[in-house]
């Protein structure tokens, strides 16, 4: 497997990057989560979430208040399940997505999810140490929808490296 990431070599090779990769993806549920048809999928939540948490490069994932998963929050539609997380870089997200047991769930996604037209996944770089919001995620999806892949909103198919310069924490408006 090879991901060609343009530029950014100095920052992302070996050294701690000042940026982390945020991603959100949506799944259009074929049936409510408590439907027997979804049982195998819901049974996979806990082990796959645990696998993500233990994966190299994992930084953060969105969870509902008082729960260890994100099955209740549906900001983008009543049947749109969200999967929202932050990773060290493109490689670590790729390895978790496609080189662990998570791949088997993706392979079987049509058993549980209907085909979704248009944007169902977006990635973007965030300053390391910050936590992305659902509002931001919605904006990035809109950006990808409107402009196609750019450094601000992209996918694995057309990846972009992290911004070349580290954000100046003293700069006005910089988030911490």
């Amino acid at each position, binding site marked *: 497997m090879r991901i060609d990431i343009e530029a950014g070599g100095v920052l992302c090779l070996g050294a701690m990057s000042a940026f982390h990769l945020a991603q959100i993806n949506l799944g259009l549920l074929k049936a409510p989560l408590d439907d027997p048809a979804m049982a195998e999928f819901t049974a996979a939540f806990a082990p796959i979430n645990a696998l993500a948490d233990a994966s190299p490069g994992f930084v953060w994932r969105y969870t509902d208040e008082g729960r260890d998963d994100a099955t209740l929050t549906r900001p983008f539609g009543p049947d749109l399940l969200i999967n929202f997380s932050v990773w060290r870089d493109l490689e670590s997200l790729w390895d978790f997505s496609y*080189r662990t047991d998570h791949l*088997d769930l*993706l392979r079987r996604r049509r058993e549980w999810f209907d085909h979704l037209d248009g944007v169902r996944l977006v990635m973007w770089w965030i300053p390391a140490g910050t936590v992305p919001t659902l509002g931001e995620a919605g904006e990035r999806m809109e950006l990808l929808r409107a402009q196609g892949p750019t450094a601000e909103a992209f996918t694995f198919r057309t990846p972009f490296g992290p911004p070349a310069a580290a954000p100046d924490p003293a700069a006005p408006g910089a988030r911490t």
Partner: protein
Amino acid sequence: MTDDSVIDAAGLLADPTRRRLYRYVTEQGEAGRAEAADALGIRRTLAAFHLDRLAEAGLLAVELRKVSGREGPGSGRPAKLYRRADREFGLHLPPRDYASAAHLLAEAVERSGAEEALYAAAREEGARRAAERGADAPRTREELAEVLRGCGYEPAAEGGRGALRLRNCPFHSLAAAHPPLACGMNLELLRALVAGYGTGFTARMAPRSGEGCCVEIVPDSAADSKNNED
């Protein structure tokens, strides 16, 4: 589409010694000059000569690395280690471009959400291939490995589990662009093929980081207690 460097590279492999060296390196994953020479029973200078020719042609990649555990004078000089290069060589005469067609078809399957149709077609193809061999079907793990080798999977026996790891993904560039789709297709193909032989083995998804196929072949008995070894 087929440039001359591909023909030159293929031409290099016409030499039996070079071909054996190339195969040895790909089987080992990584090999130095001395071990390759020893394995083939040829002089080290000859092995070094041919290995470097293969590297010049882009068939092998070279890395200079200090071999650990060596002390004293001479240990400071890094050894040349060879492995198969990432570049893919395709030689079709007359020129053909099935890879581009495969990528376009995969894109269309994903856009239309027709994954299950592809999986079903792959299952039928696997069963058809298994039936094609009829009485000639593999009977043992070794014979099964031989068949899979012929399909380009580069199988390797693994430890005490009686499993076969597949060290090469024949659909590599497609799988890199469309992982769940291509890996799912491959799994269905292998599962139907291996089940069709009735050799007592099962294909299952077992991706690992790094290169190689995400499917492994395990004895039916091991398949029942799934995913316990991680």
